[in-house]
């Protein structure tokens, strides 16, 4: 097809150097103005509050306001256990967010279901929505969350977020289709 659909981190780094100035600037802007939507369902919420509070202070990284409307946010934080019953709600919240959007699975419950291996718990939020960064820990230390935040910011700058990649691919596929004609 002539379209490159997979990338490795190294290739990406090389590509980053070739990113257009506009792209680089807009990604820079995106990574420092993450508005998060905390989808808080369980005990990890305490740790989220601690990260958002003054001591660890997520606001240092530009993720200043938790927005309680998915339409105004671009970072979905799935904080805590997701049950099967909540699946439709989670999916809907994600679909309501405007692109580009990112997802962090906060804690093992949101990443894999954690120690809940039963009929009611979804084995990870990635069963229903694509997740960019997983944070292990039950609950994770605030430092881990900050680490994940920085990883996510890295990805955003490189254009490697799930939704960024998808947009990119759609563009590439459309371009290839136009070429073929």
């Amino acid at each position: 097809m002539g379209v490159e659909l997979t990338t490795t981190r190294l290739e990406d780094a090389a590509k980053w150097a070739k990113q257009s100035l506009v792209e680089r600037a807009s990604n820079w802007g995106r990574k420092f103005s993450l508005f998060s939507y905390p989808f808080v369902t369980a005990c990890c919420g305490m740790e989220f509050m601690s990260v958002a509070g003054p001591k660890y202070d997520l606001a240092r990284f530009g993720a200043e306001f938790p927005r309680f409307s998915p339409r105004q946010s671009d970072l979905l934080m799935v904080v805590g256990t997701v049950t099967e019953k909540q699946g439709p709600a989670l999916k809907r919240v994600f679909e309501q967010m405007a692109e580009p959007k990112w997802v962090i699975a906060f804690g093992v419950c949101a990443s894999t279901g954690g120690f809940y291996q039963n009929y009611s718990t979804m084995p990870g939020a990635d069963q229903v929505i694509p997740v960019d960064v997983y944070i292990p820990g039950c609950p994770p230390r605030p430092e881990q969350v900050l680490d994940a935040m920085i990883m996510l910011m890295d990805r955003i700058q490189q254009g490697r977020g799930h939704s960024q990649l998808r947009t990119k691919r759609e563009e590439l596929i459309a371009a290839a289709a136009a070429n073929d004609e």
Partner: protein
Amino acid sequence: MAQKVLDALKANHASAIELTESLFGDEIAWVKRDSLVAVATWLRDEPTMQFDSPVFVTVIDRLDWHPTGVPLSAHWSDESGKPRFEVCYQLRSSTHRYRIRLKVAVPEQDARCASLAGIWSAFDWQEREAFDMYGITFDGHPDMRRIYMYDEFVGYPLRKDYPKEKRQPLVRRDDLPINPIKAPGAPHGDR
């Protein structure tokens, strides 16, 4: 202490009480299914009883119960007569400081029990929980629906024959990551 309650129950409702036991300081009265409401109403209204505090209602699934030490026949004549479920109502009287547990034997084929939600309204949601988890239908309950699980859920998860890791997903991603190398020509990669 609550032995008084058991004695009073036996004196006033001899035909309704199948058996009484005292276990670790808890007094238990096995009540016939049909007489449960009458016994409970009496316990609440009788001035010497005044059971005003409903503590909990729960169900025990005796699917594979093989008691050690006590022969099964102490309760039931044989294995086939053993009912699968026990519905337990724990009650407390704050006036007289009595505690009592009412148990009702419920067979698997006819998983019904009388509802006490009309007598103590706190049992409303608890009976819904018991229905949700064990599938015991409480007759006379105002709103017998599932309370925790979704309506699409099939089966009763706390029954011992429900495979505990069997999930019944409502939604799943329809766009799981497809590696384009493995699936050439796939229209989209991972989102």
